[in-house]
């Protein structure tokens, strides 16, 4: 049992730290962390950031060298996330491209597809989104109805997707559509398309979220066109490609976990500084008890993650236990943010520029609800853990 990191990994961290201090957007390190809010400026700001990462050799670090990556080890990837969280780096606009679509293309894409997409994913020139969920297919993704019909070497796609993150900014979509009907086996007959978003048959409508942001969208497909060459994997076998795509997230919820750790530490600082009845909040018995409990839970989640990571390092890929990490972290995040608001008293209802401590907590609390739904709801995670980790009988109908 050891938690040390090697000299090489330490050097990697130092290199990244130095690079970040020299290349983060102007004023970022000093705390001026503002991202423009209009769609165009927002998109440009984040694309520029990704371009900077790319030029410094810090985009897609886990990718093989021949595709522009660094062949980073899992530990290096972890360090990468730790450092990005530490400096509160701007979000990666092409997260889906870099962490999911790119690696899938590298493994299973055709030569032509690699030529066409890989480079632009890294540079941020082409931002990707994922089109899975539909109004009638959420947790039960195999119920998708969006269909693609063949017409010569073209596919005509019709239907509606929903909750498409980054859809309004994206140039390309990793889209699942039905190409065949197997009422008995619903996950058969689904095909994965690499769809061009910049065409008249594709329309996005941003959806206003409960936290005030507009990050996800409705996505309407009306005679949208894809070609044979845009299919990844085999026709009717898109389910497999999607499963593969998820497996590429080899460091799992690392980044979220490191953010949680940072927020915990910030929470402690606030509870030290914030006074109620002339006493620091942290001296309040109730607050201390709760915070000590949160300490155990966040440390426990982090250590669980390291234990699962140890398995991943041994086996080369994550096991079903990674669902445990996702469930623990997203639920804990929600409770911690909630607690932070509770202890602000009635002032906790103040928001934005009037928020008493840091508006981050109000935002975080609201945003935390997305994390227990997106990427598989907590209930679905529990099913996965129950069935795949504990071996309990499967839900009927699946």
């Amino acid at each position, binding site marked *: 049992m050891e938690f040390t990191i090697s000299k090489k990994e330490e050097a990697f961290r130092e290199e990244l730290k130095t690079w970040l201090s020299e290349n983060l957007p102007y004023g970022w390190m000093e705390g001026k962390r503002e991202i423009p809010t209009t769609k165009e400026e927002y998109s440009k700001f984040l694309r520029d950031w990704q371009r900077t990462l790319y030029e410094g050799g810090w985009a897609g670090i886990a990718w093989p060298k021949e595709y522009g990556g660094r062949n980073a080890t899992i530990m290096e990837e972890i360090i990468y996330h730790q450092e990005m969280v530490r400096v509160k780096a701007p979000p990666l606009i092409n997260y889906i491209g870099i962490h999911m679509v790119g690696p899938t293309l590298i493994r299973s894409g055709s030569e032509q597809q690699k030529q066409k997409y890989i480079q632009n994913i890294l540079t941020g020139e082409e931002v990707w989104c994922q089109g899975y969920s539909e109004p009638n297919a959420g947790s039960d993704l195999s119920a998708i109805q969006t269909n693609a019909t063949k017409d010569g070497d073209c596919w005509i796609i019709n239907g509606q997707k929903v909750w498409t993150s980054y859809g309004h900014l994206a140039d390309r979509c990793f889209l699942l559509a039905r190409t065949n009907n197997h009422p008995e086996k619903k996950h058969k007959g689904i095909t994965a398309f690499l769809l061009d978003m910049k065409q008249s048959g594709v329309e996005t409508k941003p959806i206003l979220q409960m936290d005030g942001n507009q990050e996800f969208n409705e996505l309407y497909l009306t005679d949208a066109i894809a070609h044979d060459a845009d299919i990844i994997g085999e026709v009717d076998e898109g389910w497999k490609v999607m499963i593969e795509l998820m497996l590429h997230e080899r460091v799992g919820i690392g980044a979220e976990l490191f953010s949680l750790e940072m927020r915990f530490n910030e929470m402690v600082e606030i509870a030290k500084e914030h006074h109620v009845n002339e006493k620091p909040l942290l001296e309040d018995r109730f607050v*201390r008890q709760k915070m*000590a409990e949160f300490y155990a839970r966040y440390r426990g989640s982090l250590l669980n993650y390291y234990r699962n990571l140890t398995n991943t390092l041994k086996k080369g890929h994550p096991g079903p236990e990674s669902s445990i990490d996702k469930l623990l972290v997203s639920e804990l995040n929600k409770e911690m943010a909630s607690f932070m608001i509770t202890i602000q008293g009635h002032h906790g209802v103040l928001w934005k520029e009037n928020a008493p401590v840091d508006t981050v907590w109000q935002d975080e609390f609201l945003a935390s609800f997305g994390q227990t739904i997106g990427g598989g709801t907590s209930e679905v995670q529990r099913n996965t853990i129950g069935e795949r980790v504990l071996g*309990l009988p499967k839900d009927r109908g699946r």
Partner: protein
Amino acid sequence: MDFALNEEQEMFREYLRKYLNDVGQTKVARNFIKGDLQGFLDIHSGLTDLGCTSINISEEYGGLGLSSLDLVPFFEEIGRSLLPGVYLETMAFAVPLLELYGTTEQKENYLPQIASGSKKITLAWLEPNKSFNPDEVECSAEINGDSLIINGVKTLVSGGDIADIYILLVRTGEEVEEGLSLVLVDHSEEIKRNNLKCVDESKHLAELKFNSLAVPINQVVGPINQGWSLLQEGLLYLNAALSSQMVGGMDRVVEMSTEYAKIREQFGQPIGRFQAIKHRIVDMKLELETARSLSYYANWTLENSSDDRAAAIYSARSFAAEAYIRSASQNIQIHGGIGFTEEIDCHLYLKRARYFENYLGSSQDYNEQVALALAW
């Protein structure tokens, strides 16, 4: 990064599991409840043969010279089988204190006998109607030449009737904390021992009465009047091991629920298909794994004298204590009517969980220790 027990530790766990399976796991505790002390003593010598009682004793005193992490499989496995005894107090309190602070004579006298399984030690701290606070220790030891004269009563002494030696917290001076000492007292006829009934019947508790008992002064562990700080050091070891012992119990509880949910059918299907059951077991599993990670790390910090050891150990302890009660309770519910019977082990785990809940301090006390350790 390697956060897992090593191969030897896992192998040792397998040996132990097999041995305890062969003797019927909780059967030992059940027979002990019925009054069969000999059955337990037989298992004790079996465990001694496997090396369990010498793990963390240094080689020069007949031990294996291993460390806290090597105790983890042992404590998890005895937690799983609800084994009676005073292993926690002997292996994870007396041994580290003797190794760290014992005189050569004390080490020579006690460590080989612990290693060979012939001596068992427990801790006598609490007094009737008192708390664990230092100002409430009244049991006194007066210096009289080369002797200490002990007067007072200790209660709720774990394994009081099977232990051969007590480590007694006694008042030797005026100062609240720096007037306390730890002293090794061999059991003798002069000590009046009264057994107390315990909800967890696989745990024997005793009240000990000392009436001008003379003990040689060289039986004091560490410097005189420094007992309280020694006790704090010992509690780190004890609680790290205790968290592992609770993890072992929880592991079995989750396993029982999972197994039962797979085979029990109602409404034409295994109950494990109902999410009210499935999700509950998953939540138990999450707490189990969290507790396990915390306990591994707690024991790692001891082995590596890490700065965060107090926070790590006490958070492991209080998390595990709370989680153990929750999962042992759910386990009963998941078993339905049969879970309410004496015949099924469910209740034994719940009772053990309750026994540990406030042992040597409450979860709130230990949370407060965490807060202090973090300089809050």
